[in-house]
C-alpha cells in the first residue's frame, strides 16, 4: 500500500455557484521513501494541492476528494485534533520563502522546540539536545550559538536550513517541499536540494518536491507529475518522461529549458499564460497555447488516460519522435 493516496482531490475558491477550481480532480500516490516531483508554471495548482494535503486551505476555499489516505487513514474523515497530530509529525512541509517562514519574534531554538513539544513531549533538556542534533544534521555551523539567534540575524540559506530542521524535527514519513529553493541564491540552491535528498535517503522519508524547475526534478525525482491550471497533464517515471514526453505541454516545457535551446538563436518559450479564474477555455485547458490543438481540443476536455504506462491528459499523446498520434483517427 502506498504511503499517500490521493483520489480526485479538488480545491475550489469563490462562490458555490461560480467556483474557481484551483485544483481539479487530481489523483496520485506516493510510495514510502519515494521522491515525487510536481512540476508546473505559476498558477498550475501545485502549491494549492499540497496546502490541501496539509489541511491549510481556509474558508472560503473548499477541499473535496474521494479519498486522501495517509498510511491507511483518510485525512479528510478524521477529527481536526487527530489530523493535527499527523500534521507536523508524520507529514511536514517547507515553504517557498524561508525568510518569512520563521516568526520574527522567537529564537531559532524556540521555534524548533515548539514542534518537538507538541508532538514528542519530553523535557526541555531532551528537546534542546534534539534541536542541537537537528541543526548539526542540516549543516548549520556553530549550532550552539545559532540556537539563540533571531530570524533577522540569519541569511536566506541559513533560514531555509532552519526551516528544514523544523520540518524534520519529528522524523516525518512524508516531507512536502514547496519550491524550497526559489527564493534563494543560485549558489545556495544546489546545497539545499542536496541536503533534502540526503535527509530523504538517510531516513527513508518520502519527499514531494514542488517546483517549476524541470532541470531540478529531473535529477532528484523518481517520478514526475506535470500540472497545468489545476489539472494533472502527465505523470510517470522520471527517466521516461524526460526521454519521451507524451504530452505536448511536457514537450514544450522541456524545449523551454535553456540547455535544450542550444543551436537556436533565442530561448524557446510557450506563448501565453496559464488561464486564471476568468479566462478558462471550454475544451482542453492548454488548447489556446498548444501547437497541435485541433477543433476537438478546443471544444472538448480530454480525460486522463493510460498511455504506455504513463498517465496523460491529451487526445493525441506524442510518440517517441515527439509527434502527436491518432490525429487522423
Amino acid at each position, binding site marked *: 500500500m502506498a504511503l499517500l493516496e490521493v483520489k480526485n482531490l479538488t480545491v475550489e475558491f469563490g462562490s458555490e455557484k461560480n467556483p474557481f477550481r484551483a485544483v481539479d480532480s487530481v489523483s496520485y500516490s506516493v510510495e514510502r521513501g519515494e521522491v515525487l516531483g510536481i512540476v508546473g508554471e505559476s498558477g498550475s495548482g501545485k502549491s494549492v494541492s499540497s496546502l490541501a494535503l*496539509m489541511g491549510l486551505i481556509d474558508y472560503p476555499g473548499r477541499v473535496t476528494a474521494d479519498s486522501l489516505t495517509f498510511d491507511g487513514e483518510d485525512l479528510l474523515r478524521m477529527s481536526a485534533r487527530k489530523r493535527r497530530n499527523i500534521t*507536523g*509529525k508524520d507529514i511536514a512541509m517547507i515553504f517557498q520563502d524561508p525568510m518569512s517562514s520563521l516568526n*520574527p*519574534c522567537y529564537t531559532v531554538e524556540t521555534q524548533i522546540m515548539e*514542534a518537538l513539544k*507538541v508532538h514528542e513531549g519530553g523535557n526541555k533538556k531532551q528537546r534542546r539536545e534534539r534541536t542541537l542534533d537537528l541543526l548539526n544534521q542540516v549543516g548549520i555551523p556553530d549550532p550552539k550559538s545559532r540556537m539563540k539567534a*533571531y530570524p533577522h540575524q540569519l541569511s536566506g540559506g541559513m533560514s531555509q536550513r532552519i526551516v528544514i530542521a*523544523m520540518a524534520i524535527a519529528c522524523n516525518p514519513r512524508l516531507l512536502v517541499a514547496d519550491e524550497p529553493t526559489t527564493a534563494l541564491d543560485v549558489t545556495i540552491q544546489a546545497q539545499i536540494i542536496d541536503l533534502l535528498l540526503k535527509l530523504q535517503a538517510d531516513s527513508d522519508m518520502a519527499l514531494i518536491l514542488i517546483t517549476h524547475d524541470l532541470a531540478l526534478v529531473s535529477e532528484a525525482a523518481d517520478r514526475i507529475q506535470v500540472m497545468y491550471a489545476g489539472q494533472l497533464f502527465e505523470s510517470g517515471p522520471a527517466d521516461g518522461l524526460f526521454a519521451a514526453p507524451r504530452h505536448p505541454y511536457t514537450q514544450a516545457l522541456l524545449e523551454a529549458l535553456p540547455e535544450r535551446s542550444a543551436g537556436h538563436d533565442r530561448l524557446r518559450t510557450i506563448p501565453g499564460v496559464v488561464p486564471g479564474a476568468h479566462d478558462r477555455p471550454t475544451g482542453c485547458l492548454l488548447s489556446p497555447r498548444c501547437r497541435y490543438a485541433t477543433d476537438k481540443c478546443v471544444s472538448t476536455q480530454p480525460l486522463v488516460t493510460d498511455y504506455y504506462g504513463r498517465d496523460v491528459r491529451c487526445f493525441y499523446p506524442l510518440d517517441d519522435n515527439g509527434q502527436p498520434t491518432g490525429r487522423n483517427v
Partner: protein
Amino acid sequence: MLGFLFRRLGDIVPTFFGVTLLVFFLIRLIPGDPILMMAGERGVDAVRYAQLKAQYGFDQPVIVQYFHYLLGVFQGDLGKSFVTKKPVLEEFMTLFPATVELGVIAILFAIVVGLPLGVIAAVRRGGIFDYTTMTISLAGYSMPIFWWATMLIMFFSVSLGWTPVSGRLSVLYYIEPTTGFMLIDTLLSDQKGAFVDALRHLILPSIALGTIPMAVIARMTRSSMLEVLREDYIRVARAKGLSPAKVVVVHALRNALIPVVTVIGLQVSVLVAGAILTETIFSWPGIGKWIVEAVSRRDYPTIQGGILLIAIMIMMVNLFVDLTYSVINPRIRHTR
C-alpha cells in the same frame, strides 16, 4: 539597547526646551500687563509696581527672563498660583495621582475590552461579529465623551442608582492621602468598605475615559492581526500541527502587538485630553479639572506650569513605550 535609549533622549531634549519656550512666551502673548494682572482688581501704586517688576525680573531683557525661568524649572520652581498662592508643582503633585489612577484604570479597561474584540474580529473577519464590533468601535471613536459621560451618569447613577455620581470617595469615609492613589490608600486604611466605595467611584469615569482608546485599540488590533495572519510563518506554525488557539495567541498576537503597543502609548495624549472633560463632569479632583479651572480663572502660572508638566509626562510615557516596543520586537533590540 543603551544606544537606543540615548538616541530617544536626544530627540526628547530639544522638544523639552521647545515646550519651555512655548509656555514661557505663552504668558507674554496675553494682552495686558502681567503685574497689573497679578495685582488684580485692587491695583498697585507706582512704587510697588516698580518693586514687583524688579522682583519678578520683568525689567530685564526677555532672554534673561527666559533663562531665569529655565533655571527655576530645573529647580522645580514653576511659579505660584495666582489663586491659591501655592507653588504650581506642589499643587500638581497632589492632584496628579488622582489622574494617574483614573487614566490607568481607563487604559486597562480599554486594553482588556479592546484587545480581545480586535483579535476575535480579525479571526472571524467578514462575519457578523467583525461587522458589529467594527461599527461599535467606530462609534466609540466618534464619541463626544463629555456627552457619553453624562449619559452614563443619567442611566447608571440617576436612573438605576448603581454607581455614585461624582468624586473619588463617599463623604462617609475619610482617608488621609498617603500615596494619593485612592485604591491603595483605602486598602491600607482599616475602614471597611472604603476600597469598594473607591472602586465604585472609578467605574463610570474610567469607562467614559476608556471608550475612545478602547475603540482605537480594537480597530488597530484587528487590522494588525489581519496583516499578521496572512504571513507565511502563520502557515508554518499551522503546518507544525499547532492548535488554532496556539497559532493565534503564540504566533500571531505576539507580532500583531507591536503596532498596538505604539498605539496604546499614543493614547496617553488622548487620555489627558479626555481627562479634562471626564474630570470636569465627575468632579474628579485631578489635573484635568485643575487646568480647566485655571483657564476659567485666568490663573496663568498654573496654566503655564500645568502644560509644561503634562508635556513632560507625555514625553516620559512615550519614552517608556519605545523601550517596551524594543522588548517585544527583537528586530529593534538588535539594530542600532
